[in-house]
């Protein structure tokens, strides 16, 4: 029988390989050996060590790349520093031209980039060709636009400086675009380190950038091990670190940069839910699952790896899914008819296989389709594990491979609970043909991207990033710019402190009250009526748990009052009260209502204006005029955030999706706030007001030195319809209380305006649950100045962006 006739009968797919010729020619041109790309030149350090890059689909050696050492990292950062001087001064419209040229050049080399990406990483050519590379170019076009508009639209901002960027191996080119495009658009210069497994496309990219004529030193690419990454992170001349990768490494980076004044954005792991309701298009949702968990072999931080399906359709859905899995094709990444290519490395393959075995040991039922795998190469079958419960490690931990676990739910609220039953919060997918249900669930899942009736949608115009331990910062969209900008009034913080290794931070022995002996000794006049120092927790004045009291002295050392000396249990109670207020609806109230309450607070504060002025004078010894200015500014600040309460909800993003992509500025949750000593009232209000205006509830630690204004203020709160628990006030030793807050795993963010050393500890300790932090590094801030004391920086810290994608069409 002729071959044609045979195929005519079997109707099998045959091989459809993409030719690797051009890539091989490019590799050969470089002698299959690469140096570092510094100052638009290839630099091969003397005595350099090399590291092999393999094609994971067949084990063939592709090329060798340099292992950068300390001196090489220094050289790259020095080049970036020199380039920064001119690049940051280059007009935005000129920078836009360069980004535009890069985007054009990337399109010209589309196929070369795609084929190399697939050979280096193992991902199917269909994905690198149709998804990764088009998005790469799209990102540069998008941010070319922001460079063009920077001087008019972002006039209050300046570039951050030299940026160190460390990217993972799963989307080498796309992650590079997400990092480099916004950075250089805003006038920063970059040293990028690609992941060890996948270094080659970053090197090709560097060459393409040079070809586009980008000035030397603006983009530098160095290859090396994780220690080279650490060298970048710890280098004193780096102003910002941007990282995408595992949560474990993210924690290390948070600690390494703590207290340094370097900006940090982290895009970390996930275990994203894929929620299917019984009124979904089940066949459509099955395809969604394919795109969610078998995209890029499941090696995707936002992979929909937890299927949560309504119990009444679960059987049918799983049956459809299994049938669909039988049609998956796994094989040569360069084959155009392949759904899944190779796992990036043997160690990753072993990890995936280990998790599948764990899942089975945990009682899961493992399904893999009866499909062929190539004999050689790091291939893994698409895998579904059913019958597991949330208690299983396989359900909780990120696998980073083509493995889906499934759970069932009964009601929408249970679906939301299951979806949020994770330490992560990167993405979610919600499937229902009922718009009310779908959008309600989308608004309640804690994740940075929620895809309704779709999954794994990306675009330059939409921010991407996590809640919770999935990290912080956004990449893409307007929100992605702020990772690479600093307000013009602010210099790069260079906090100075000496770490006292012997003294444990935040240790505190309760202070004993000093008896105000003078007043009592005088038998002729009545002694003043003692006021019991109280905390303000859950809308009630409560005695300090430890029943200790601290005496407040004025600037001259005279006793002016007493406050409770709070301890960890006061913080615990305050955090619980804050959560209760949040879940009982503060965040869900509309902005109008929150603004009314803020106006009411301002009204009531103003009514007691003189009393607050007197208190400030009494405590701080400042002039009447200065105290009056502080109280007036405090009233005005409340007005400012009453104004912002209904004007910062988000935007409609102009993505390529047909439908609507909305960026919603959601509250962060419960924020712990340690207030500055300067401006005891205004500092407190400047931090409290933006937080509650945007729907957060707060635990406030007032100025340790001058806490009385804040304690007077709770009476204002009491009379202003502020629901109990929205604002909680705990007085005492700032660092002692802050330590409990920052270590509290159910506090979502900590703002700290104490010392430089305290800022270090806050950032360092925050790594435990990767909560967001905002620290003042002990540097002065003029709270009376509207530019420094209010506005976008505060609102940015009080919110987190969720992008909800809603495709339309009937």
């Amino acid at each position, binding site marked *: 029988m*002729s071959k*044609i006739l045979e195929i005519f009968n079997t*109707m*099998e797919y045959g091989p*459809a390989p993409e030719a690797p010729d051009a890539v091989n020619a490019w590799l050969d041109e470089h002698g299959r050996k690469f140096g570092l790309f510094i100052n638009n030149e290839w630099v091969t350090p003397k005595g350099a060590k090399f590291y092999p890059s393999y094609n994971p689909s067949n084990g063939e050696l592709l090329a060798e790349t340099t292992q950068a050492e300390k001196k090489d990292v220094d050289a790259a950062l020095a080049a970036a520093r020199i380039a920064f001087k001119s690049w940051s001064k280059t007009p935005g419209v000129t920078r836009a031209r360069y980004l535009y040229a890069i985007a054009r050049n990337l399109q010209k080399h589309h196929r070369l980039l795609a084929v190399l990406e697939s050979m280096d990483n193992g991902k199917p050519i269909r994905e690198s060709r149709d998804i990764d590379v088009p998005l790469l170019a799209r990102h540069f076009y998008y941010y070319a636009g922001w460079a063009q508009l920077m001087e008019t639209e972002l006039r209050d901002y300046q570039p951050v400086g030299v940026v160190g960027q460390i990217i993972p191996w799963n989307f080498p080119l796309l992650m590079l675009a997400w990092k480099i495009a916004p950075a250089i658009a805003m006038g920063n210069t970059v040293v990028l380190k690609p992941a060890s497994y996948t270094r080659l496309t970053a090197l090709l990219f560097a060459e393409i950038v040079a070809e586009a004529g980008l000035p030397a030193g603006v983009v530098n690419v160095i290859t090396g091990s994780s220690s080279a990454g650490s060298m970048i992170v710890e280098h004193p001349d780096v102003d910002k670190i941007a990282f995408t990768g595992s949560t474990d490494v993210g924690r290390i980076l948070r600690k390494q940069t703590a207290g340094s004044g370097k900006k940090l954005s982290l895009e970390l792991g996930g275990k994203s839910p894929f929620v299917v309701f019984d009124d979904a298009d089940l*066949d*459509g949702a099955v*395809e969604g699952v394919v795109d969610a968990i078998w995209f890029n072999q499941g090696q995707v931080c936002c992979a929909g790896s937890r299927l949560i399906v309504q119990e009444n359709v679960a059987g049918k859905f799983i049956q459809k899914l299994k049938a669909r899995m039988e049609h998956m094709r796994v094989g040569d990444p360069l084959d155009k008819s392949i759904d899944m290519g190779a796992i990036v490395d043997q160690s990753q393959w072993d990890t995936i296989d280990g998790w599948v075995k764990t899942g089975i040991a945990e009682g899961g039922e493992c399904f893999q389709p009866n499909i062929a795998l190539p004999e050689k190469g790091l291939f893994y079958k698409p895998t579904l594990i059913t019958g597991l419960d949330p208690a299983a490690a396989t359900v909780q931990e990120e696998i980073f491979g083509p493995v889906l676990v499934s759970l069932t739910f009964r009601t929408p609220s249970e679906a939301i609970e299951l979806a949020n039953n994770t330490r992560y919060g990167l993405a979610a997918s919600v499937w229902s043909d009922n718009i009310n249900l779908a959008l309600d669930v989308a608004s309640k899942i804690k994740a940075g991207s929620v895809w309704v*009736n779709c999954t794994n949608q990306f675009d330059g115009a939409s921010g991407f990033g996590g809640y919770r331990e999935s990290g912080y910062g956004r990449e893409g969209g307007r929100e992605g710019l702020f990772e690479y900008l600093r307000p013009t009034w602010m210099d790069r913080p260079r906090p100075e402190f000496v770490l006292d290794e012997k003294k444990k931070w935040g240790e505190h022995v309760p202070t004993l009250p000093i008896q105000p002996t003078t007043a009592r000794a005088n038998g002729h006049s009545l002694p003043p009526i003692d006021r019991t120092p109280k905390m303000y927790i859950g809308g009630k004045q409560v005695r300090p748990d430890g029943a200790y009291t601290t005496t407040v002295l004025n600037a001259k050392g005279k006793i002016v009052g007493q406050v409770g000396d709070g301890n960890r249990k006061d913080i615990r109670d305050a955090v619980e009260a804050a959560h209760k207020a949040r879940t009982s609806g503060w965040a869900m109230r509309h902005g109008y209502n929150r603004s009314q309450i803020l106006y009411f607070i301002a009204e009531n504060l103003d009514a007691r204006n003189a009393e607050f002025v007197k208190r400030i004078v009494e405590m701080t010894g400042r002039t009447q005029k200065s105290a009056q200015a502080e109280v007036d500014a405090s009233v005005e600040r409340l007005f400012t955030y009453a104004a912002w309460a209904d004007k910062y909800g988000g935007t409609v993003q102009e993505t390529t999706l047909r439908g609507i992509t909305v960026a919603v500025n959601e509250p962060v949750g419960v924020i712990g706030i340690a207030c500055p000593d300067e401006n005891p009232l205004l500092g407190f209000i400047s931090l409290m007001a933006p937080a509650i205006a945007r729907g957060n509830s707060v635990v406030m630690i007032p100025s340790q030195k001058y806490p009385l204004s804040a304690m007077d203020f709770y009476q204002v709160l009491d009379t202003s319809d502020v629901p109990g628990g929205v604002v909680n006030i705990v007085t005492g030793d700032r660092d002692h209380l802050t330590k409990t807050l920052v270590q509290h795993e159910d506090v979502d963010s900590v703002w700290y305006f104490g010392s430089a050393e305290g800022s270090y500890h806050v950032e360092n300790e925050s790594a435990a649950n990767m909560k967001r932090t905002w620290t003042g590094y002990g540097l002065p801030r003029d709270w009376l100045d509207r530019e420094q004391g209010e506005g976008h920086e505060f609102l940015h810290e009080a919110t987190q962006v969720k992008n909800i994608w809603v495709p339309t069409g009937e």
Partner: protein
Amino acid sequence: MTSNHTRNPGAPLDLDWVMGAHVNKSAVERRTASLPKRRTVKKDWQAAWLLRAITCIDLTTLAGDDTPGRVHRLCAKAKQPLRPDMMERLGLNGERITVGAVCVYPNRVADAVHALQSSDIPVASVATGFPAGQTPLPQRIQEIEQAVEAGAKEIDVVIARNYVLTGDWQAMYDELQQFRKASGDAHMKTILATGDLGTLKQVYQASLVAMMAGSDFIKTSTGKESVNATLEVSLVMTRAIREYLERYGYKIGFKPAGGISSAKQAMAWQSLMKEELGDEWLKNDLFRFGASSLLTDIERQLYHYLTGHYAAKHHMPMG
């Protein structure tokens, strides 16, 4: 057409099933956008697949100027869709490669039957007031009976779209049952005219009703609507076929028609069938293309496969 499959006897109309349908358009579009990029066949495989596509063509002429002569010429092409020299070079000497059927108006059935008498290629006739279906019911039924009488082995009936648009599923079901009865042993291919329907959900619902009423095939279009076969409606209809199979155990055929004129398009549809329904739906007892010019493009692609040269249309014998 010889079928290895048990003929669909139909099923009682299940309105709950029809009303409970969910089709999400954007999800459908994503699937159809990615599928042709996820699957492709090259070289020998492409040649074999195109050859298979030829055997699935309902070679069609449905024009006001059709004459016995025109039909005769079409039938000649149906019997010998590939040039003998190309057949030989493909290693297919002695193999019987013909199109799936010849599709004509009722008035031309006798001409086609006559022209095809030396072959076993079935004649398909459109009927029931094709293409609009806006003819009184007795006439529409009579049309089927006359076509069967004239020797048609397949009847491509059109549904009355008004029933779908107004949600009168019972009426649609009843009418199609009468059509099926009138068709007798001839297979009934039900044209949904999806271009006239409002939503993909209606396409899905109409597919279910058509199958429950006893259709052997469901077919997208008459070729006369402003939008004819698309991958989107095809995906929705194939999924309905799969649901019907799972529920009742009968395999229903699928026929996209109208606008499929290139080999590349044909292969996209083949991939769709293979992926959504399986290999059985690549053969002509369950899959047909309603097309007139597709065959020529396939011939040209096969010529290129054999010679490495791009072919001229006028080198391919006319149908």
